[in-house]
C-alpha cells in the first residue's frame, strides 16, 4: 500500500546553515508519526517543505503518491496544516474563522454549517463560538488553531507543536482530539519537544537533531536501543574515568552516558540487579551525592544519542 506521506532525502540549506540534512521516512494510513527534537532541530522546516511553503534544496515529498512539487493543489487539498504559531483572525469569532477557512476549501451552505458546528463541538468551543478570538485563552486559541486545519477533513494532518505553551489540562484536551482524528482513519505527523506526548501519542516516531533523524521506530523499539533494564543515575565528586573503570568491573552494568561528576548506567534486567551494581561501585571507592533508579525513557535515549538534554 502506498504510504499517505512519504519523504525522501529531504534537505534544506539556508545560506551556510543546513536546517534539514537528508531526512527520509514514511507514514501509513491511520498512523500518528512523531517528530521529537529540541529547538532548532529542523521540525518546522521539514513541515514547511512537506506543505509546500518552503522549496526543498533537495529531495521530494509524496502525499498519497502525488508529488508536492508537481501537483501542489491536489496535494494541498488532501492536507491540513496546523502551524506552530497560532495563526487566526483575532477580531473575528471562532465560527467566522472556521467559516472563512471552510470557504477557502469550497464548503457552502448546509455542508459548511454542519461541518463548522461539528468542529466547534469537537474542540469544545461551541459555547464561545460567537466571541472574538482575541478574548480567548491560549488553550482555546490552540484548539481553534487545530480546528482550522481540519475544516476540509484532510487525509493527512501536519501538527507542528500544537501544545506548546499551554497548561496540562488544555494539552490533554488537544491530545484527545488528535486521537479522535486518527481513530477516524486520518494520518498525523506530529512534531513536539515534549517526550511524554510523543510516548503517549505516537505509533512511531523519529528523534531528530541538527536536521538528522538519529533514531526511528515505535516507542518500545526506541527504548530497546538503550537495552533492557533499569537506569541508574548517579552524581558525586568522581571523575568520568573513575566511574567508567568502576562500572567495567561490575557484571550486568553498562555505561550509557558518563561525564565528570555524573553518570547514567543501565542495570541489565537479567543480571544480578541494582543493589549488586551499587555495591560494586561503592567497593571501587566511589561516593555519591545522589542516586536514582528509573525505567529508561526517550529522554535518556536522546541524551545518549546527542549527549544533551532534550529541553535546553
Amino acid at each position: 500500500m502506498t504510504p499517505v506521506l512519504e519523504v525522501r532525502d529531504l534537505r534544506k540549506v539556508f545560506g551556510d546553515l543546513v536546517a534539514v540534512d537528508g531526512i527520509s521516512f514514511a507514514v501509513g494510513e491511520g498512523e500518528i508519526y512523531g517528530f521529537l527534537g529540541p529547538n532548532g532541530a529542523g521540525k518546522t522546516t521539514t513541515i514547511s517543505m512537506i506543505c509546500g511553503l518552503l522549496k526543498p534544496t533537495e529531495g521530494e515529498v509524496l502525499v498519497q503518491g502525488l508529488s508536492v512539487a508537481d501537483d501542489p493543489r491536489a496535494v494541498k487539498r488532501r492536507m491540513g496544516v496546523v502551524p506552530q504559531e497560532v495563526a487566526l483572525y483575532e477580531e473575528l469569532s471562532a465560527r467566522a474563522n472556521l467559516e472563512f477557512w471552510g470557504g477557502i476549501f469550497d464548503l457552502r451552505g448546509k455542508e459548511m454549517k454542519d461541518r463548522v458546528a461539528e468542529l466547534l463541538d469537537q474542540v469544545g468551543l461551541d459555547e464561545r463560538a460567537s466571541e472574538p478570538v482575541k478574548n480567548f485563552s491560549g488553550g482555546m486559541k490552540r484548539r481553534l488553531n487545530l480546528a482550522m486545519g481540519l475544516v476540509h477533513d484532510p487525509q493527512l494532518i501536519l501538527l507542528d507543536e500544537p501544545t506548546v505553551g499551554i497548561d496540562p489540562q488544555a494539552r490533554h484536551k488537544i491530545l484527545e482530539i488528535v486521537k479522535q482524528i486518527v481513530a477516524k482513519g486520518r494520518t498525523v505527523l506530529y512534531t513536539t519537544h515534549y517526550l511524554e506526548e510523543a510516548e503517549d501519542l505516537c505509533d512511531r516516531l523519529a528523534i531528530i537533531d541538527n536536521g538528522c533523524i538519529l533514531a526511528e521506530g515505535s516507542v518500545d523499539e526506541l527504548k530497546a536501543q538503550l537495552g533492557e533494564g533499569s537506569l541508574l543515575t548517579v552524581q558525586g565528586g568522581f571523575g568520568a574515568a573513575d566511574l567508567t573503570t568502576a562500572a567495567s568491573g561490575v557484571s550486568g552494568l553498562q555505561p550509557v552516558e558518563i561525564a565528570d561528576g555524573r553518570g547514567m548506567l543501565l542495570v541489565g534486567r537479567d543480571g544480578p540487579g541494582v543493589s549488586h551494581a551499587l555495591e560494586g561501585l561503592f567497593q571501587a571507592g566511589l561516593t555519591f551525592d545522589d542516586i536514582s533508579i528509573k525505567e529508561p525513557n526517550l529522554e535518556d535515549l536522546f541524551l545518549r544519542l546527542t549527549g544533551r538534554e532534550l529541553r535546553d
Partner: protein
Amino acid sequence: MRRIWHLALHDTRLFLVARENLFFMFLMPVMFMLFFSVVFRGNGPTDVSISLQVVDRDSGFLSRAFVKQLESGRFDVVAVAPAAADSTAYIRRLIIPVGFTDSVLAHRPVDVALTKKSDSNLEYDAAAEVRLRQVQARFLGALARWNQEAVSEISVADQEALLALIAEQPRLTVAAEFAGSGRPVPSGAGQSIPGMLAMFMVMTVAIGGSESLTREKLGGTLARLATTTYSTGEILGGKLLHLVLVGMVQAMVLMAAGQAIGRLGLFGIDFSWGPRYWVVLVGLVPYAFAVGGVTLLLGGLFRTTQQAESLGWMVGMVFAALGGCWWPLEIMPRGAQILGGFFPTFWAMKALHAVVTFGRGLDGILLPMAVLAGFGALFAWLGARTMKVTG
C-alpha cells in the same frame, strides 16, 4: 476570480470591524474636508484679483476709462509710467498703445497687448486672458451705450457719463466664465473636498492596509493561506482587490460626505460633485488600484506594524502634499508641478477637477485614468515581488 473575491471580501470585513480604521474612514476625513474648505475659502483666481501691470502709453481719457474697466473686472492694476516701463519687472503686463483714445473714437481697430513672463502661472494667465476679453466686451458695451460720436470735443460731463457706465454692474454675466481653454484654479471647497477625498483614499488604504498586511505577514495567517489550495497569485490578487474595495468604500463615503456638506451649506460651504458623480466614481477606480498597488508594496517592505503606522502615514502625507491634495498644484512652482506627476494623487486630482470643476465627461479623463492604471500595474507588480507570502 471567485476565490479572489472570497479573500477580498473577508479582508474588507476585517478592515471594517477594526475601530481605528473607521475613525480614519469617516470622522477624520470629514473633519479635514470642513477645515480645509473653510480655511482655503476664496483663494485662487476665481475670486481673487489677478495682478496686472498696465503701461498706459496713450494717457487719453478713454485709456484711463479702460483702466477703470480693468479694475472693475477683478484685475489688480499696477500702473507704470511709460518711461519706467523698461526698468520695471513684471509678470503680466498690458500695454495700451499711443493713440488708443483717438483710434477708438474714430472706430479704428486698436490692439492692447498682454505679455506674460514665461514663469508666470499658466492657469492664472489663462484666467487673465478670459477676464481681459470680458473687460473688452464690457468696455465696448459701455462705449456703445455712451454713443459718443464727436471726435474732437468731448466735454467733462460726457467723460463722466462714460465712467458712470463703466462703473455699472454688467447686466449680463457669463456663467461659464472659464469654459474652453482658460481654466481657473480650483479653490475653497472645490479644491479641498476632492483633495481630501484623494488624500484620505491614500491615507486609509496605505495606513490601514499596510498595517493589516504586515500583521498577516508576521502573524502567520498569510503563510497559512499559502498552505491551502490557493496559489500565491490568488492570495496577492485577493489582497489587492481588498485594498481597491477599501479605497472605493472610502471614495463613496467621502463623496456622500462632500455632497452632504455642500447641500447643507455647512459653514457656508458651496460644493457639489455635479451631475456626473458616476464619472467621478468610475474615474476613481484606477486611482484605488494605484493606491492598492502602492500599499501592497508597502506591506511587502514593512517589517513591523509600527513601521506601517508611521511610514504609512508619512507616505500618505507626501502623496497628498506633492500630488496637489492640499493646495492646487497650479499655484506651485513649475518644478513642483513636474514632481507631482510622479504621484498617483496628482492624476487623481487632475481627473477630479476635470469632472467636478470643468464638467468634463469620462472621455475627458481617459489620460489620467490610464496613467493611474499604469501606476497600479507597476506598483502591484513591485508589491507582488516584494511580498513574501510563504513567510
